[in-house]
């Protein structure tokens, strides 16, 4: 994906910023003791506080505060020791109190950054503006009845982290890569499960276009005047849709501008069926949220040693793990793929114990991921544990079995279970390296194919056919390199250059 798109009149640059809402992993809600579990019966996980009943008051959940700080540290961001909760006032049926408790002027986390690794091997830094805590709203169902909408408040009050980026993304690839990386980071940290299909992570994507040079000007001066008017695409809930939405929206804006029109700053929705963005009717009037500090709460104050304890407890994050894998011999690209999911990285580490890193990575990429994909399984559901796979790799490394047998072995234990070493023993799959056995097999094939023997003397490349036959004769267990060498000697074939 290039960083510019071609319009009728020339090139255009795309500029993208994002606001990601990530549901905090916690047992109970941000300001009430109701459960946060997904998929419960309607209105069964609602405290009177969440329902905005008369006289109800918020009390903050310490775990949610911890998760926000943990995430901030994972984003290499400044943790603000003092932050304030504000009320954002507006009317909507899924907002029972008529206001959302959020953070406006003084968020819990300040500026940070995220590194994203692109397919071409380059990396870019996406700046984070801030992260704040706020309440999620309930859910409205509009298609259950012709005249009414139904409101379920189970989600009302669940803690959200709103992560706001700076407008540092320049293409749909970068936008998707950023969200993927952010998702990996929060999953590594255990602060959000990142399940976009369940709605635990959603992105509002801001897109604008400008003539080449405009973005550079913006980065230099910080003035938004150098950028185009942006439109916000709300609630994009998959990585694929992000890329599509950005592509469509950028094109839409370029077309308008090239026809001499101007972009109206507005909020839009992405229609995944049509692959288009369209204007949101209900957001026509500008909202006056009348933010003011919530008088039912006091400012949130954090002790430095409490923050330090969280910092000390952080797991190794994707960037550090990636650097370590590269140092162990993997390519930057392979390393990036492996760290994109913590479970995958953990699997790989166990897999690579005591074997060549590259061999382990190749095994994982070529054999395991393919089979998982075929069977519609996630890495966490792999039927052959890492340790067992590690055994297979070791057996290839020490010559017990050859590469082809190794794949067959994997197929067997994948569908039937059992430990690889035991299976190899039981089925006699050990590689044949005994030169006597190989010579015997070669004699057999030569004896059965006199015509071919003559042919190969004229066309040495046909030796491959012989190798194949000898492999068959040994039930596939011979060491191919040893067969090749013995065959050359026996048939007096020249060495290949």
């Amino acid at each position, binding site marked *: 994906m290039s960083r510019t798109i071609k319009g009728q009149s020339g090139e255009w640059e795309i500029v993208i910023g994002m606001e990601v809402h990530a549901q905090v992993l*916690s*047992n*109970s809600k941000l300001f*009430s*003791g*109701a*459960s946060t579990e997904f998929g419960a*019966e*309607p*209105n*069964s*996980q*609602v*405290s*009177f*506080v*969440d*329902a905005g009943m008369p006289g109800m008051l918020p*009390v*903050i*959940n*310490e*775990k*949610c*505060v911890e998760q926000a700080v943990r995430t901030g540290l994972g984003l290499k961001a400044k943790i603000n020791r003092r932050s*304030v909760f504000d009320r954002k006032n507006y*009317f909507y*049926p899924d907002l029972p109190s008529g206001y959302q408790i959020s953070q406006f002027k003084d968020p819990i986390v300040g500026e940070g950054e995220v590194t994203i690794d692109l397919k071409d091997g380059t990396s870019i830094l996406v700046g984070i503006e801030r992260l704040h805590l706020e309440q999620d709203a309930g859910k*409205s*169902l*509009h298609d*259950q*009845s*012709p*005249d*009414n*909408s*139904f*409101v*379920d*408040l189970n989600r009302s009050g669940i803690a959200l982290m709103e992560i706001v980026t700076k407008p540092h993304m320049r293409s749909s690839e970068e936008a998707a890569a950023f969200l993927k990386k952010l998702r990996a980071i929060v999953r590594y940290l255990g602060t959000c499960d990142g399940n976009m299909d369940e709605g635990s992570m959603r992105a509002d994507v801001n897109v604008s276009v400008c003539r080449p040079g405009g973005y550079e000007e913006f980065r230099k001066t910080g003035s938004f005047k150098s950028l185009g008017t942006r439109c916000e695409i709300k609630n994009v809930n998959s990585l694929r849709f992000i890329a599509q939405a950005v592509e469509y929206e950028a094109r839409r804006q370029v077309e308008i501008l090239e026809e001499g029109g101007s972009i109206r700053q507005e909020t839009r*929705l992405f229609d995944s069926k049509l692959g288009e963005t369209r204007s*949101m*009717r*209900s957001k026509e009037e500008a909202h*006056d949220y*009348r933010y003011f*500090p919530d008088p039912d*709460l*006091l*400012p*949130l*104050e954090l002790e430095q040693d409490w923050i330090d304890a969280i910092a000390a407890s952080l797991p190794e994050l994707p960037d550090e793990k990636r650097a370590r894998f590269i140092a162990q011999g993997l390519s930057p690209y392979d390393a990036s793929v492996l760290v994109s999911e913590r479970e995958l990285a953990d699997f790989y580490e166990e897999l690579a114990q005591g074997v060549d890193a590259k061999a382990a990575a190749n095994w994982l990429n070529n054999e395991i991921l393919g089979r998982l994909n075929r069977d519609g399984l996630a890495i966490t559901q792999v039927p052959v544990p890492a340790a067992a796979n590690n055994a297979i790799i070791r057996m290839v490394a020490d010559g017990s079995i050859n590469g082809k047998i190794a794949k067959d072995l994997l197929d067997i234990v994948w569908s039937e279970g059992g430990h690889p070493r035991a299976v190899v023993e039981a089925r006699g799959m050990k590689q044949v390296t005994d030169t006597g056995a190989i010579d015997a097999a070669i004699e057999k094939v030569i004896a059965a194919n006199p015509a071919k023997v003559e042919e190969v003397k004229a066309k040495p490349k046909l030796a491959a056919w012989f190798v194949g036959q000898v492999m068959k004769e040994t039930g596939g267990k011979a060491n191919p390199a040893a067969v090749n060498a013995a065959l050359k000697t026996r048939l007096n074939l020249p060495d290949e250059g």
Partner: protein
Amino acid sequence: MSVDKDTVRRIAKLARLAVPEARLEPMAGELNGIFKWVEMLGQVNVEGVPGMTSVVAQKLKWRKDVVTEGGNADALMANAPGGEEHFFTVPKVVE
């Protein structure tokens, strides 16, 4: 600050309060009386004075992350107008 009936109409909209057309002008008058009176606060020099963000000199209390509430849809719905099978009902909303 002074409000006219258009402003009252706009504020009433923000507050989702139906004020009959005939009441707009009188309401503007009542509000203006009050706003004129609070103007006197402008006389005070508040430079460098922090706002009173908390009346109590205490740190925000934290709650342990345990499920202690909910699971009582019946009690929740008991006072609901309309309401169907544990959903709150409202006129159709078009997004």
